[in-house]
């Protein structure tokens, strides 16, 4: 089948009445999760997984992609209006977005943010559609050595880059990895760390762990402040009487290079594991500022400073799906949830997915494109509703979300033990917060760990105990070398800084 035929099939698959309804609902809920500070794209996907249990894989993925896209974009609403980023992906949006509101250009700021979010998503989806199948074609020849090295590479990147403290990042990754070793060993069939408990034989469920760590942990942490924080006042901008999207064609054309550059940055960062949307918006903003002739304009409310982060963070979505779909490797927590969703619906992400379930893959692509349009329309015309949602107090919102978490965990196995496990990981998540340990490496250690372990042990069995093939396969060698290099660079950073300081004196 030609690529165009596959794309057409994808559209046919998601353009059903049910599919469209799911996309509209998904984008709307996603925007709310993105807009509300403290709720994230990861949480939106986590909470809606149980809703998809009885759906077809294609409908399920359509809904989850809609949530993902809505949530990443929705962060701009609170970032611009409240100067509080709704998600880490829109931190840089506050820099110029809020000053524009202060200058009385709220509608224009929102218009710019929404339109460039839309363009970022579309751009990255199209790149994804043409790049991913090619990578899948190459990856089909990957053996245990390549998968082991890519998993180790991703783990190293995540542990070192996702936090300021490398030691803590590695500890988080190791502890996540350790939790994944609990249960029946897949190769040898013996029990590991089950302590005779039947419930532990199957190991910890990925979804229970993630819902616990990200949602329950967040709720417990919020309990500290929910009872004394006052809600800030928000002014609803008047979107009526605004022509087009609030900015001129000239302004739009003037942003073309900035937008293209930011989209490429966003996409590229999405492809590499461990960095993700939280960094891409900041990096795109910094690059736009450095490249500008008058960098002092930035921070005072210029649209360039809004275009860069909003294009980049949405472009990261398409990038992040590249390793997820082609290799089965999630680069951040939201794609980790999507991996869980795919597995739950009997799909194994990886090169074979493009051969065996091409319809689902192209359905995902089509859904992403349609959702971008839904997002554009909804954020522009439904803004008032979303702004009203920002006024829901946390003490009402968080308990309701916990109920949804408990519901989802219960339905994993229809028994209460999963809910208790979820609670346990909630406590772990809260502890992580208290000790400032990043939770992303934990989750990815938990998910990528088994991939590394199984492939290492399989590879060693094939080679009768020789590690050489891991180093002689060019792809495997390159990834291992980068992993070692990253660690060396980070480990020697304090030494180099000291030397620099000594020279300076």
């Amino acid at each position, binding site marked *: 089948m030609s690529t165009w035929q596959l794309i057409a099939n994808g559209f046919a698959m998601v353009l059903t009445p049910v599919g469209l309804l799911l996309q509209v609902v998904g984008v709307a809920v996603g925007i709310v999760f993105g807009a509300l500070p403290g709720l994230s794209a990861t949480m939106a996907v986590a909470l809606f997984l*149980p*809703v998809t*249990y*009885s759906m077809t894989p294609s409908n399920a993925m359509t809904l989850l992609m809609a949530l993902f896209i809505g949530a990443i974009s929705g962060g701009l609403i609170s970032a611009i209006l409240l100067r509080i980023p709704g998600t880490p992906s829109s931190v840089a949006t506050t820099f110029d977005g809020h000053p524009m509101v202060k200058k009385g250009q709220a509608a224009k700021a929102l218009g710019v943010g929404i339109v460039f979010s839309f363009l970022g998503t579309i751009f990255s989806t199209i790149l994804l559609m043409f790049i991913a199948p090619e990578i899948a074609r190459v990856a089909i020849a990957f053996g245990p050595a390549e998968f082991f090295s890519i998993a180790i590479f991703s783990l190293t990147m995540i542990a070192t880059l996702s936090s300021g403290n490398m*030691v*803590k990042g*590695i*500890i988080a990754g*190791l*502890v996540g*990895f*350790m939790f994944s*070793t609990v249960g029946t*060993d897949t*190769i*040898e*069939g*013996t*029990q*590991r*760390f089950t302590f005779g408990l039947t419930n532990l034989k199957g190991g910890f469920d990925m979804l229970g762990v993630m819902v616990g760590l990200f949602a*329950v942990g967040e*709720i*417990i942490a919020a*309990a*500290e402040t*929910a*009872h*004394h924080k*006052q809600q800030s006042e928000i002014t609803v901008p008047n979107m009526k009487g605004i022509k087009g999207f609030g900015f001129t064609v000239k302004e739009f054309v003037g942003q073309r290079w900035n937008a293209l550059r930011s989209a490429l940055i966003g996409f590229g960062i999405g492809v590499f594991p461990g960095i993700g949307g939280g960094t891409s918006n900041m990096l795109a903003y910094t690059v736009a500022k450095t490249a500008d002739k008058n960098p002092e304009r930035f921070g005072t409310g210029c649209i360039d400073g809004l275009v860069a982060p909003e294009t980049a963070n949405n472009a990261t979505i398409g990038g992040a799906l590249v390793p997820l779909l082609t290799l089965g490797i999630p680069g951040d927590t939201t794609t980790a949830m999507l991996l869980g969703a795919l597995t739950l619906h009997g799909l194994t992400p990886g090169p074979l997915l493009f051969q065996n379930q091409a319809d689902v893959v192209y359905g995902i692509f089509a859904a992403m494109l349609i959702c971008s349009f839904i997002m554009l329309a909804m954020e522009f015309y439904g803004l008032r509703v979303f702004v009203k949602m920002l006024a829901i*107090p946390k*003490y009402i919102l*968080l*308990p*309701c979300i*916990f*109920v*949804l978490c*408990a*519901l989802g965990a*219960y*339905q994993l196995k*229809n028994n*209460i033990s999963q*809910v*208790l496990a979820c*609670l346990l990981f*909630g*406590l772990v998540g*809260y502890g992580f917060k208290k*000790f*400032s*340990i990043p939770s992303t490496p934990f989750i990815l250690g938990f998910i990528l760990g088994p991939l590394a*372990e199984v492939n*290492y*042990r*399989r590879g*060693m*069995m094939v080679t009768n*105990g020789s590690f050489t093939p891991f180093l002689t396969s060019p792809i495997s060698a390159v990834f291992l070398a980068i992993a070692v290099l990253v660690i060396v660079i980070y480990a020697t950073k304090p030494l180099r800084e000291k030397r620099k300081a000594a020279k300076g004196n």
Partner: protein
Amino acid sequence: MTFRKYKDLILGSVMLVISGLYLYFAQQIKTRPKIIPSYSNARIFPTILGILLLAMSILLIIQGIRKAKSFDASKGDTGDQVSKEDYLVVVLTLGVILLYVLLMVPLGFNLSTMLYLFVQFMILAPKGKRKPIQFAVIAIAFSLVCFFVFRVGLSQMLPRGIIESLLGY
């Protein structure tokens, strides 16, 4: 104050203990040397992980000692300071969450959820904003909406109790 000063030191020590325990139990894992060679048995990764965590926790302890020595209480962000009253709310929240989870099966989904939501709203709401009637209405409505969406709309199983029987499910 003291917590912030010794944070890394405490964490490093806890991780040291965990890595020790993990390594001990890792050596208890049964292997089948006749079928699976020792270089790829079930013990190899847990052993490597345990050793790595041990090394990292020692590094963190060293970092923690350095940090505690040069610690300046006036420096750093003071925004995340949590009062005793705040911790009380956290402990109460954990308590009701645990009760909720344990009571879900005996009481059924609806009754336990309504009770949990109401009590949790009361605990979390600021003193001047506690509106029992409004909270009760939200708790009942939210629970019923969830029940109907999951049980009826998505035909999922939920713990049954009095309310579920009254509703006829």
